[in-house]
């Protein structure tokens, strides 16, 4: 019981964040490369999960907003030499605005058509990115998007020791961390609770006074905006924006990350993103049949953990705790019973 309390008191989010922050100093260049990719994909997947897990909307075109963010940021920074501090918010706003326009039509349709229309819109964005040579660079893409100006970091101890990729990783991690904190707050807010009522039972939600379409649209816009932030970071990280970034397989990839990690938990998509990025790297370096091996591993994982990795783990822990609870002495149980508040919280989470 004591260890349990202790484990409960550690601010795990902060620990993970600090551990992730230490990567550029403790890890290799390759580790930084992987960590940046995980952080950005994690944000992208969490933004999708606002639709999938929280609101119950299946969007097959989420990559459109990721791509728009990447292009807006890339074009502003490369073509117009704008600073990152303007390009990043512009990317979020641009993606959110596109979500508003497309979402307006999508939320008017029922579930399966919503999924199809969201996919259709993302293909339109892809076609535009692919053809509009003057602005997006067409099939050549937009290479050499510059890094933000991070010279100010050089005068700061520790940060000054890092290469630009490491410094950009730190910036990305902070942006991702703040975005995740904001999204967590939104999910736990009254607005977020209303979204869960729509997921649970849209008919009932409308009968308690929820304007279902409007809330779905709001969720779509928020999710799109955060996907835009992830896209903006990704364009800089990969030193260019290409039409592949808005192609539908990327939508499928982020969907896999989200489901693999677990849609019922806030951190599920981040775990899914980390798992997929690492698996991808490992397997591609061992075998040329990597997509086959990856597919098989994913199938096994999905069958073993129907609630995703995080869902499976938390079910496992709950089971262990129950098993141990039965073994504790009556005294300890009485103690536990007096802590009525903690038990109720546990029940709530389960």
């Amino acid at each position, binding site marked *: 019981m004591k260890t349990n309390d202790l484990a409960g008191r550690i601010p795990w989010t902060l620990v993970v964040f600090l551990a992730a922050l230490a990567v550029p100093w403790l890890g290799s260049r390759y580790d930084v490369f992987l960590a940046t990719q995980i952080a950005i994909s994690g944000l992208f997947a969490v933004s999708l999960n606002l639709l999938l897990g929280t609101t119950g909307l299946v969007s097959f075109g989420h990559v459109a907003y990721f791509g728009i963010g990447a292009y807006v940021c890339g074009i502003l920074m490369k073509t117009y030499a704008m600073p990152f501090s303007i390009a990043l918010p512009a990317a979020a706003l641009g993606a959110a605005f596109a979500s508003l326009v497309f979402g307006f039509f999508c939320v008017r349709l029922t579930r399966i058509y919503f999924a199809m229309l969201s996919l259709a819109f993302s293909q339109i964005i892809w076609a535009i990115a692919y053809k509009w040579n003057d602005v997006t660079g067409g099939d050549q893409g937009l290479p050499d998007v510059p890094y933000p100006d991070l010279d100010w970091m050089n005068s700061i101890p520790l940060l000054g020791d890092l290469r630009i990729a490491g410094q950009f990783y730190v910036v990305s991690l902070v942006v991702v961390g703040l975005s995740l904190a904001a999204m967590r*707050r*939104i999910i*736990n*807010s*009254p*607005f*977020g*609770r*209303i979204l*869960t*009522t729509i997921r*649970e*039972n849209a*008919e*009932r*939600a*409308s*009968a*308690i*006074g*929820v*304007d*279902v379409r409007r*809330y779905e649209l709001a969720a779509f816009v928020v999710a799109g905006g955060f996907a835009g932030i992830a896209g903006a970071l990704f364009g800089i990280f990969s030193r260019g924006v290409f039409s592949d970034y808005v192609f539908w397989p990327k939508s499928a990839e982020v969907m896999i990350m989200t489901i693999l990690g677990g849609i019922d938990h806030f951190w599920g998509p981040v775990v899914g993103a980390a798992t997929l990025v690492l698996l991808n790297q490992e397997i591609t370096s061992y075998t040329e049949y990597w997509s086959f091996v990856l597919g098989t591993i994913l199938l096994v994982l999905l069958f073993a953990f129907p609630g995703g990795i995080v869902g499976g783990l938390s079910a496992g822990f709950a089971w262990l705790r129950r098993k141990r609870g039965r073994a504790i002495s009556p005294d300890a149980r009485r103690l536990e019973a007096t802590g009525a508040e903690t038990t*109720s919280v546990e*029940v*709530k989470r*389960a």
Partner: protein
Amino acid sequence: MLEVKGLSKSFGGFRAVSDVNLAVAEGEIAAVIGPNGAGKSTLFNLITGHLQPTAGRVVVDGRDITGVAPFKICGMGMGRSFQRTNIFPKLTVLENVQAAFLIHRGQGPNFWSRSERLYRTESEALLASIGLAAQAWTTAGTLSYGNQKQLELGIALASDPKILLLDEPTAGMSATETHESIALIARIARERGLTLLFTEHDMAVVFSIAQKIAVLHQGRIIAHGDPATVRADAEVRRVYLGDH
């Protein structure tokens, strides 16, 4: 308070509700009865905006609400429960009613406060009044059928309705549960001064609390009035009450 004028609904060529007229006065407890498939649920769905009528009007407090979206109708003070139990199954019992408080009190666009702390007292008090205080932290979907029906009543009450429509509030309950549940509904309706319109198959229940009864048969009202009048009606006895 609630007036239904010449309301009709056709599904394809089939007239599920045809030319129904109904008036429920403020504070009245009224029942719609009729055999299976008579059109009771369809009538309710027409009133609450879940279905669009083919013809006719629905008027509340002198305001025409025909064809208005369900979420707006709820905002005008009309709450309802559904025949097939309709709750938020993966949320806790407390969260179910809390969500209704949140939306009703205009907290929906609030992106930033922590929802779990809002309207806790109100939600707990409401749960206590419908006898679900002990189950506050239970996942709603795991409640017994009877308790889910009760929770649905709680969800409807959280938006503080003036008119409450209950579609078979005791369907599937045991005799004792039905009895308790009806006593509860009658008490709450009286305490809150609610205008209540409900459907029910158990005639003992209907005649025990309804002040006014309308009998629906094949989409038409064949009789209406106080319980005594309806019970004595020859047509009603023939098509419906015959075996009671």
